[in-house]
């Protein structure tokens, strides 16, 4: 059983047509899993269900062997889940350090150790810690967003399209940041539009179509699969 897994998830908005149909996603610690697929396939919805922003009508979410399906977002975050939204994932008119402090808002213990770890992982954040996040470049802003999410000492990081709308050069920078986060023995699950690039670095890949698992495998297997290549990667 993987560290975080969503099993046979069925979910819909406003009880209408289900967006997820028996969809299963799992990710192990120290692993990067990627959810790819066409628009409207339910990629972000799957992530919302794992986080608890949307409740599944059937299926279960298991974290470290414990069923967390009925817990609130807050509760799941305190159990080790962290989420980086696709847009508006920082507090632009606050400094880098304040962003990180707000990330640790619910913690009552000393956060200086975690702060040091984040600065260790992203040295540029340390250099700019007194600068407003709104003044940072796209890549640095994304690091601040990752850093904020890491302040709760999460074991699982959920990233919603972390490279949406950034320049190709910055995209590589963000992917290498994500690999670094993975190395710190965390489970990382991301939804990604740039399927080919994401699968190249992924340990696991899930190709969703209409809320179903169309293909599952390691990143390399999926990249080598002619059908996946033809339908999703443009040959």
């Amino acid at each position, binding site marked *: 059983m993987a560290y975080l897994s969503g099993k046979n998830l069925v979910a819909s908005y406003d009880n209408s047509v289900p967006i997820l149909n028996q969809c299963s996603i799992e990710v192990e610690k120290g692993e990067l899993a990627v959810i790819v697929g066409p628009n409207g396939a339910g990629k972000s919805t799957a992530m919302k269900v794992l986080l608890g922003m949307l409740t599944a009508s059937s299926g279960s979410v298991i974290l470290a062997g414990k069923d967390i399906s009925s817990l609130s977002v807050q509760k799941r975050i305190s159990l080790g889940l962290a989420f980086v939204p696709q847009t508006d994932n920082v507090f632009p008119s606050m400094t880098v350090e304040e962003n990180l402090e707000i990330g640790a*808002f619910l913690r009552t213990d000393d956060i200086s150790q975690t702060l040091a770890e984040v600065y260790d992982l992203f040295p540029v954040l340390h250099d700019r810690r007194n600068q407003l996040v709104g003044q940072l470049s796209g890549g640095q802003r994304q690091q601040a967003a990752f850093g904020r999410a890491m302040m709760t000492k999460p074991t699982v990081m959920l990233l919603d399209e972390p490279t949406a709308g950034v320049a190709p050069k910055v995209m590589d920078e963000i992917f290498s940041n994500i690999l670094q986060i993975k190395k710190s023995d965390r489970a990382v699950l991301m939804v990604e539009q740039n399927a080919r690039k994401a699968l190249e670095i992924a340990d696991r890949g899930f190709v969703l179509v209409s809320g179903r698992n169309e293909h599952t495998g390691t990143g390399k297997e999926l990249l080598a699969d002619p059908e996946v290549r033809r339908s999703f990667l443009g040959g």
Partner: protein
Amino acid sequence: MPELTDIMNSIVLLLNFVFLPALSYGSQLALGALAVTLVYAILRFANFAQGDTMAFATVITILITWLLQKADITPGFMPTALLALPLAVIACLLYVLMVDKFVYNYYRKQNSKPITIVMASVGVMFVTGGLVRFILGPEHHIFSDGPRFIITAREFKSMTGLAEGLAIKTSQLLTITIAILLVGFVFYFLQKTKTGKAMRAYSDNKDLALLSGIDPDRVVRVTWILVAVLTTIAGVLYGLDKGFMANSYHQLLLPCFAAVIVGGIGSPMGAIVGGFVISFSEMLLTYAYKKFLLYLLPEILQPSGLVQFLGTEYKFAVSFVILVIVLLLKPTGIFKGKVI
């Protein structure tokens, strides 16, 4: 060339009739504007009830002051109203929390558009204004007691030997001192404390703040506490300076809003600067410069008229014109606030 004493006299004249009054009026506006800007930044609506809430808090202060005076509890060296202030802050807080619970909370939970909440605040403004007139009527009340001046014009004249006097009113000194302390406290609170940072985070990105575990109800509550403190103190200081009248408090809304927009909506620093921009513009444009020029100009150039740009009855026009100019030329204001 004018002589040195003439120059000194002209400077003292301006200090006495323009600078000091503008400084204390500006401090009062700044506190009111800070309350408006906090509500806008965190609760996301322009609070039209601000002026009348200031009146309500002042009415409570006046009632308590009268009680204290009747019981002969007066400090003597300062206005009795200052003793009444803490209780008035609590009364004002209870009032705004009640209004929030029964009015704004409903629209917040419905996720109403800001304009809907603004309209609700117009309703709160009328109800509060009615309540104020119901308790104290529309008349002018003077509730300051104790010594009126720190230094009178006559004392100043005999000390310096100048023809012009610089009078420092107790209310002016109180206003400026309290305003500095209070603004310092609010800024420290917002910048350095965990709750203050949570409020800024909530104002900056509400969804992410919720995701980070910030309790929205607490943020709303603390915002109203700050607003109650600022509103009560602004209202009482204004009243000590100029006396209380329900209608003139109601009309304070315009210069307060103008101050907020000039400074940049939602920016606390902008509200302070905006307050002084408005007060100094009002004073400088409605002052009659005749006497000032008599000191400085040679006889042949001396003016026959008052040399007043605008009559004092037009002082609200000054706020209004500044408001229009800022909205046309730099809608984000001095400190790059949000645009409505």
